[in-house]
């Protein structure tokens, strides 16, 4: 179990803010760390791995104190990253370019049985003598995962591990992570922006905003059981409103897709090009209405 009550002052785009992480994470689960960029997600992981020192607070893992500093006092304890045995899969993977795949694994630990087992698991036996610059993104990701598992970590931290991969590869690696979690029983914390990934992988989501954990719930609760009358809703931007016969057609950009939605003259009254809107359905027809600031905005993830 991870018990964290760490604090750290961070510099943000609009001023300094305090990162506060009062949370307990049970052994063996997969927890998503979500939130807009610059909200402290990566720093939270770095404080757990020991790469960034918190200002104060307590970090305890399986009953062992890793960091302790009371307000206004000197640091009582701060284990070095080398002493924590945390597996980290970095954004961009950080594989050692001069070592082969096998070399990367053996650098972590001189356990060649373990290396062979992990190579089998990630299906890279054939490529074990290849150096990382010659691997594809998905292969690098798997090597990074295997390397992080070599020292049999108690916690596995992944910082947006799948964001650079295509959908097919993502799905494959998500299955792999689930298997690692169930077979090795390692506690996994994963920074991700992808709501389907959270839903598929995680049993818990910690939503960070400006350094605070603003939601701590299950993905199902966060995404599906929201109090809403709409079946689906997407946020988008109106690019153009055209008059077609008696009605109007709005061209709306939702993510990378452009959609045309028919709107009536009442709706047209308070909409114009450039507005940020929510496109949803009630009954059968899509509706378009202005986006309200207090709405839960999934693009923040």
């Amino acid at each position: 179990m991870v018990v964290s009550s760490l604090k750290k002052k961070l510099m943000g785009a609009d001023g300094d803010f305090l990162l506060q992480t009062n949370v307990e994470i049970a052994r063996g689960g997969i927890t998503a760390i979500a939130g807009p960029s610059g909200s402290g997600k990566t720093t939270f992981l770095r404080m757990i791995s020991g790469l960034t020192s918190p200002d104060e607070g307590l970090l305890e893992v399986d009953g062992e104190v890793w960091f302790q500093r009371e307000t206004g006092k000197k640091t009582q304890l701060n284990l070095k990253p080398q002493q924590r045995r945390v597996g980290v899969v970095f954004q961009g993977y950080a594989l050692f370019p001069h070592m082969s795949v096998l070399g990367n694994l053996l650098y972590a630990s001189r356990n060649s049985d373990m290396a062979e087992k992990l190579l089998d698991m990630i299906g890279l036996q054939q490529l074990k003598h290849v150096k990382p610059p010659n691997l594809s993104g998905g292969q690098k990701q798997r090597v990074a995962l295997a390397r992080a598992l070599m020292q049999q970590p108690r916690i596995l931290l992944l910082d947006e591990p799948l964001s650079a991969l295509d959908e097919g590869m993502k799905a494959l690696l998500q299955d792999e992570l689930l298997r690692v979690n169930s077979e090795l029983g390692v506690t996994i914390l994963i920074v991700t922006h992808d709501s389907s990934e959270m839903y598929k992988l995680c049993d818990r989501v910690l939503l960070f905003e400006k350094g605070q954990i603003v939601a701590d719930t299950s993905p199902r609760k966060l995404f599906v059981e929201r109090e809403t009358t709409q079946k689906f809703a997407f946020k988008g931007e109106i690019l153009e409103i055209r008059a077609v016969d008696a009605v109007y057609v709005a061209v709306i950009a939702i993510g990378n897709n452009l959609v045309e939605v028919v709107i009536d003259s009442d709706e047209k009254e308070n909409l114009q090009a450039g507005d940020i809107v929510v496109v949803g359905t009630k009954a059968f027809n899509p509706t378009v209405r202005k986006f309200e600031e207090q709405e839960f905005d999934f693009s923040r993830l």
Partner: protein
Amino acid sequence: MNQFDMEPFLLSFRLAAITTILLFIFSVPLAWKLSQTRSKSKPFIEALVSMPIVLPPTVLGFYLLIFLSDRSPLGMFLKEMFSVNLVFTFEGILIASCIYSFPFMLQPLQSGMEQVPVKLLEASYVLGKSKLETLMHVILPNIKPSILTGVIITFAHTVGEFGVVLMVGGSIQGETRVASIAIYELVELLDYKMAHVYSLILIAFSFSVLMVVYILNHRNRASG
């Protein structure tokens, strides 16, 4: 005309080889420290070590001569304790060369180390590896082109040294008369023919060394 004599060249190469080895050993930890630190003393150390690049060799040689002579406190101490005399000896010009060529070893190593992504170091730390292990197994293998540049340039620069060696070492046959000084003496003796021979050897040497550096650097970049 004087007899052709290999000795000045052998002396030059011996001086350059020992200087390069010593500087490599000293520069790796210092370059590592400088590449990692954000301390306020960093610019001070960097400026101090780089001084030989801009100072006339005579200035450096002059002060080294004063500090190493047996009338200076350091010289006296060395003479009394170890009966070592550093002026007009091979050991003296070795110390002078090390100081004079220091930036040529340190700078490539430091800039190479600074270019290694921080993520690689962090990845090594979280895998339980100490800073020393990380330096040996992650940093050094990843800055081979910089090491090569540092080693070759330091070696070549030491062979090409003149002013500092002349000031500190004079021109004692078999002890401090390196190739560059031998040429100077030949010119003074108006033996232009032999001066040409010596000079052309040095020109050929310098050109080959620089060719090798550029070829290897291109190859490294191509296979990068």
